[in-house]
C-alpha cells in the first residue's frame, strides 16, 4: 500500500519534469543569443515607414574596455553596435533589427528612446503604443526628441564618463536635472499619462548633436512641447526651468542674476513648492500660481555686499523673485504661443472646479492661450553658505576699499 503510494509519487515527479521537458523550451533564450538594445532612435522613413536605429551593447567589449575620456574603446573597438531597420510598424522594424545584429533583439535594458523631429511632428503614437503594449519594454524608459534625426543621436559616439552613449544620455538627463533643473525627466509613463488627460500636454527632453574634436556627441538641450502626440515646438533651457517651476519639478540649480550695481550673483535653489489655484471669475477661469522657494547665496561679484545684514538678504530675495518670475513668464508665453497646456492648468480646474471644467473642457485648447495667470513668487534667501561677507582686497592694493562701508541692497 504505502510503497505503491510512494512509488506513484516518485513517478509523478519524474512525469512532471519530462512532461514539461518534452515540448521544449519556449521562451528560453541563452543570454549570449540576445542582442541587448540600450538606445533606440525612431525616424520618419521613406514612404511613411518608420526608420528604427538601435544601439546595442557588445558585452565582451563592454567588460574589457579601458575607460577612455570621451567614451569609446581603445583602437576604435566600440563597446556598442548600431543597426537600423525600416518597416511600416515599430514592432516589425524592431524585430528586423535581428537581421542586422544576428541575434534576437531584447528591449528590457532600453535606457532611452529618441524620436526624430520629423516623426515627432507627425505624431509619436506608434512608438508609445509599442512601448506600452509589449512586455519587454518599460514605461520608465526615457523619451526624448532629437532636434535633427534620431539616427544621428543614436550613432553619436560621445559617452562622457560612461562606457556607452546610451548610459551617458540617461545619466546626463538625470544629472543635469539634479544639478540645474533645466531639463525634464520625460519617460513614457509620464508622456502617456499627460496625453491621456484632457487638460494637460506632454513635454519631453530635447537632444542635439554637437561635434567636438572630431567626435559627435549628443547632449540634452531644452525640451520639446507636444500637443497630443504631435510635436508643437521647443522650449529653451530657461523656459524649461520656468516650466519646472510651475509644475513643481524643480530639484537643484543655480539662479544667476544681476545685482543693481551690474555685478553678477549666483544663488543655489534649495527646493521650491508650487501651488496653483483655479477660480472662475465671470464664468472664465483665472489662475494664481504661488511659488515658494528657498535659495542660498552661492557667489557674488559685488565684494562690498553686506551679506551679514538681513536687509541685504531681503534685497537679494527680490532679485531672485524677479529672476524666477521672468523664467516662469517666458515658459508661459511660449506655451501660450504654441497653444499647448503643458502645465496641466486644465487638470487643475478639473480637480478644483469640476462643474466649471465640464463647461469649458471641450474648448480648452482655445481658452488656454488667453487665460489670465497671476504668478506670485516668494523667495527666501537665508543662508550664505560657508562664508559671511566677501573678502575685500587689503590696504595696499590699488582697489583698496578698506574702511568703505559695506553696501545693502534695499
Amino acid at each position, binding site marked *: 500500500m504505502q510503497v505503491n503510494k510512494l512509488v506513484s509519487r516518485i513517478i509523478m515527479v519524474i512525469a512532471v519534469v519530462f512532461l514539461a521537458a518534452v515540448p521544449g523550451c519556449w521562451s528560453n533564450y541563452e543570454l549570449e543569443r*540576445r542582442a541587448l538594445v540600450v538606445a533606440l532612435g525612431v525616424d520618419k522613413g521613406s514612404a511613411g515607414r518608420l526608420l528604427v536605429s538601435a544601439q546595442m551593447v557588445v558585452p565582451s567589449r563592454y567588460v574589457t574596455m579601458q575607460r577612455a575620456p570621451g567614451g569609446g574603446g581603445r583602437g576604435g573597438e566600440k563597446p556598442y553596435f548600431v543597426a537600423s531597420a525600416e518597416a511600416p510598424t515599430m514592432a516589425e522594424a524592431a524585430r528586423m533589427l535581428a537581421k542586422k545584429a544576428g541575434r534576437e533583439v531584447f528591449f528590457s535594458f532600453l535606457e532611452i528612446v529618441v524620436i526624430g523631429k520629423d516623426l515627432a511632428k507627425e505624431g509619436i503614437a506608434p512608438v508609445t503604443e509599442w512601448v506600452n503594449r509589449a512586455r519587454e519594454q518599460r514605461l520608465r524608459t526615457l523619451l526624448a526628441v532629437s532636434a535633427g534625426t534620431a539616427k544621428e543621436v543614436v550613432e553619436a559616439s560621445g559617452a562622457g564618463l560612461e562606457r556607452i552613449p546610451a548610459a551617458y544620455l540617461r545619466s546626463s538627463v538625470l544629472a543635469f536635472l539634479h544639478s540645474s533643473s533645466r531639463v525634464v525627466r520625460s519617460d513614457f509613463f509620464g508622456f502617456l499619462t499627460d496625453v491621456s488627460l484632457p487638460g494637460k500636454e506632454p513635454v519631453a527632453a530635447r537632444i542635439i548633436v554637437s561635434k567636438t574634436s572630431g567626435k559627435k556627441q549628443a547632449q540634452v538641450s531644452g525640451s520639446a512641447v507636444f500637443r497630443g502626440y504631435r510635436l508643437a515646438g521647443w522650449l529653451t533651457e530657461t523656459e524649461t526651468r520656468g516650466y519646472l517651476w510651475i509644475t513643481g519639478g524643480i530639484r537643484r540649480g543655480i539662479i544667476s542674476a544681476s545685482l543693481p550695481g551690474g555685478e553678477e550673483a549666483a544663488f543655489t535653489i534649495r527646493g521650491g513648492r508650487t501651488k496653483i489655484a483655479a477660480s472662475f471669475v465671470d464664468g472664465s477661469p483665472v489662475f494664481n500660481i504661488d511659488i515658494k522657494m528657498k535659495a542660498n547665496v552661492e557667489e557674488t561679484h559685488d565684494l562690498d555686499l553686506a551679506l551679514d545684514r538681513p536687509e541685504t538678504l531681503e534685497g537679494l530675495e527680490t532679485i531672485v523673485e524677479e529672476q524666477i518670475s521672468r523664467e516662469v513668464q517666458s515658459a508661459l508665453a511660449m506655451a501660450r504661443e504654441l497653444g499647448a497646456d503643458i502645465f496641466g492648468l486644465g487638470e487643475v480646474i478639473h480637480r478644483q472646479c469640476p462643474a466649471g471644467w465640464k463647461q469649458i473642457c471641450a474648448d480648452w485648447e482655445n481658452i488656454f492661450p488667453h487665460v489670465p495667470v497671476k504668478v506670485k513668487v516668494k523667495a527666501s534667501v537665508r543662508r550664505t553658505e560657508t562664508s559671511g561677507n566677501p573678502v575685500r582686497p587689503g590696504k595696499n592694493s590699488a582697489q583698496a576699499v578698506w574702511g568703505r562701508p559695506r553696501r545693502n541692497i534695499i
Partner: protein
Amino acid sequence: MSGRLKKVIGRLFTKGPPSGYLQQSHDQGGSFGPPYLAADLDKNLEAIFSVLGKGPDLIVRHLEVGPPPKLLRAALLYADGMVDTELLGELFIKPVLHDLPRKLAQRPGSLDVIDVLEKHVVAAPSAKKAKSVPEIVSSVLRGDVVLLVDSHAAALVSSLRGFRSRNVEEPTLETVIRGPKEGFTENLRTNLSLLRRKIVHPGLCFTELFIGRYSQTRVVVAHIAGVAEKSLADEVIRRVSGIDIDGVLDSGYIEQLIEDAPYSLFPTIGNTEKPDVVAARLLEGRVAVLVDGSPVALTVPRLFYETIQTPEDYYSRPYNSSIIRIIRLIFLIASIILPGLYVALINYDPEAIPQKLVFTIAASREGVPFPLVLEVVLFGLIFEGLREAGVRLPRPVGSAVTIVGALIIGTAAVEAGLASSSTVIMTAFVGIASFITPGLTDVYIAARFLLVALAGVLGLFGLVMGMLFLYTHMCSLRSFGVPYMSPIAPSAYPQWKDIFVRAPLWLLKTRPFFITKQSKYRMGQDSKPERPPSGQKERN
C-alpha cells in the same frame, strides 16, 4: 498486523535480551545442548565449548581451589581482550586462590561454594550467579568473566570488562567555540555516563534493548519521564524493538529502519555526537536513541527548524546567534534555489538582473560551448565530486585538493572558455553555502538539480512550481507524529522567537508545545536578570 503487535508487546515484557538470541539460534537449528548446567565441570565445559567452540580468543584457566585436601576443580572462562586482566588478577583470581580456602575452612560442611564466592570472596564490583549455558555463553561473549566450579550446577559471572576504546574527545563534525567540547565515544557505557552526569534527575529513564540477530547490539532509548510524552517514548521503543536485522553496526541502521518517511529526501531523525545536545533535546521533551558502538546518538522528533540551529546558539548571547540563524536560513534557501534562479533569470527574465551585471554575464557567456543549464549541472557535479574527494582523501591532503582543485579547475575552465566565470562563482557559492547547514546533505544535490531542470524548461514559473512541490512535500512529512515544518507551518508565532532568531534565554520560558505538553514551563517566571538595587554608593 495484530500478530506483529503481539509479538512486539511480548518482547517488551520478557526480561533479559528481548529479541532472543536463544530463540533465534534455535530457530536456525543451532544446538545449545542442555540448557542448564550440570553438577559436573567437564560436562559443563563441554557444553559451553560445543556452543562457543575453542576459538583462540577464548581463555580457559583451570584452577584448584578450597582448603586442602578437599580441593575443588574450577575453570575460569573469559574472552581475550575484553577483560581488564589486571583487575581480573587483583579482584578475582587472587581472592579465589587466597581467600576462598580460608573462608571455606571457617565454614566447614557442605557449602555452596558459588554462594560463598559471590558473597564473601570475590572483590570485583559485580558478581552474580548464572545457571544456564546460554546465559554463560552470552556473558562470555559480552566480556564477562565466568567461573565454573566442579560439582556445582551454577557459575559465577562477574563483569570486569575492560576493552580498549577511544577516549572522550571533541567531535570532529560538530565543533563549537563556546560550550562543552566532549563528544560521545563508541562505548555505550561511557555515553550513558556522560548523559547521566548532565541530567542528575531520577526522571532520566534508559530503556535497554538488544537489537540484531548476530550483533546483539545494546540500544538504549532515553527520555525524561515527566518531560517527554510517554506515548512518544513508547512509540520509539516499539519501532526500535520491531527491528529484525542481522547486525546493527551504527546508529544509522536504527535511523533508517525507524524513520517516518523512508523515501523522503528530508531526514526525519536527528543525530548528534554531543552529549550536551542530547541533553538539551531531552529537556525539550525529545527522545534519544543511543547505540553501542556508535558515537552518534539519534533524537526524535526531528523537525526542519533544527537544521538552522546549533547548540552554540544557546551558549552565547542572543544577538549574534539571532543574526547567524537568519544567515543560515538564507544560505540554506540559497543553496537549494540559487542555481535554479540563476538559470531562470538569465534564460528567461534577464531584465530582473542589474544591467551592468547582465553585460558582465553575457560577456562571460560568449564562447561557452554548452547551454546554460548544462553548464550549471556540469559544474555542480564537478564541485560535488571534488568535495567528496576532499572528504575521502587523507585529511592534510583533502582540504588542499578541494580548494586547489576547485580553484584550478574553475580558473582554467573560465580561461579556456569552457565555462562562464559567473557560473563558476555561483556554483562555488552554492557549494560552500550548503556546508553551513550540514543537516540537509541529502536534499541539496537532488533538490538543486530538480529545480535547475524545471527552471531550464519553464523559467521562474517552473522554479516556483518546483519549490511549491518541495515545500508541500516538507509540509506533508511528520516526525514521530509532529508535523515536520512546525512551528513554521502550522505557524505558531510565539514559538518563532526560538526559530528564526534566538530570543534571550529568559524569554524562552516554555518548552516547545508541539513536541511535548507534559511540563509547560522550563524556567521560573522571573528569570529575567534584574539590576541590583541601587543602594550602593559609588566607590573609587
